[in-house]
C-alpha cells in the first residue's frame, strides 16, 4: 500500500469531484479524497508500529 496508490486514489476522487454536477456528489468525492489520505496515514502508522515492535531487540 504505497504512496503511488494513495496518490492514484486521491487523483480519482478529485477527477470524479470535478466531473460531478450535484453538490452532494461533489461533497462525496471531496471527502473520498480525505478518507483515502486518512486510510493511508493509518496504514503507515500501523506498519511503522509493527516494524518497531518486531525489530525491538528488547523483545527478542
Amino acid at each position, binding site marked *: *500500500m504505497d504512496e503511488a*496508490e494513495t496518490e*492514484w*486514489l486521491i487523483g*480519482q*476522487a478529485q477527477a*470524479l469531484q470535478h466531473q460531478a454536477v450535484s453538490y*452532494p456528489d*461533489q*461533497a*462525496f468525492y*471531496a*471527502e*473520498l479524497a*480525505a*478518507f*483515502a489520505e*486518512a*486510510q*493511508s496515514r*493509518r*496504514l503507515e502508522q*500501523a*506498519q511503522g*508500529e*509493527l516494524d518497531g*515492535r*518486531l525489530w525491538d531487540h528488547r523483545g527478542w
Partner: protein
Amino acid sequence: MKTLIIVGHPAVAESTTQQFLKAAAAPVSGASWHELPAATPVAQLAACQRLVLQFPLYWYQAPALVGTWLTQTLAQPGATAALAGKTLGLVVACGQPEAAFQAGGRVGVTLDALLAPYVALANKLGMHLLPKLVVAQFAYQSEAAHQALLVRYQQYLSLQDPTSFAQVAAWWQTQLRRRAGQQATEPALAARLRLVADTLATRQDALANLQDALADLEGGTTLG
C-alpha cells in the same frame, strides 16, 4: 438501519443549518425527518434502531419543543420499552465556536456538560448514547467543512458506530458500489467507481491484518 430524526428547531424553514441537514438526510436509506411539534407513536419508536435528537442550543439548552416532545412521547404506554437497546444520537447546532465550550473558554463549560441530561436519559431508557455531532457556526464554516459535515452526518445517521474507522471504510465501499450500479449508461464510470471501491477494500483488509498482528504482539502471541 431505521433512523428517526427528531428536529427540535422552532423555524426549520428559516434555518440554513437545518435545511442543509435536511437535504443531506434525504438520500439516506431508512432515515426519516420529523419536525417538531409532532407526535411520534410508539410503533414508530419500536420500528427504529436509532433515535436522533437534533436541535440548536438556545441559551445553552435545547428549545422547549424538545422537552415537550420527550414528555409527551415517553408518557405513551410502551414507549420506554420500545426504545430500550436502541442508539440515541445528538446533533447539536450552536452559534459559538466549539472551543468556547470548555473550562476557561467564553462559555466556561463543555458541551458534554450542557448535554448531561441526555446522558441520564439514555441511561434511564437503556439506550446506547453516541458521541454528539456538533455543528458550530455553520454560516462561518468553509465550503470544505460543509462538505465534510454532509458526509459525516450521513454516516452518523446510518452507521452502527460512526466513530469506527472500519465501519466508515465499509460505508465508502458500499456507497461507491451503489453509485457504480447506477451508471447503466456509463460503464467506464461504473468500472472506475468499482475499482476505487476495490482498492479501498484491499487497503482496509491490509490495515485490519496489521492491527491483528499488533494485537497478537500485545497479547504475547508470536508471529509464525
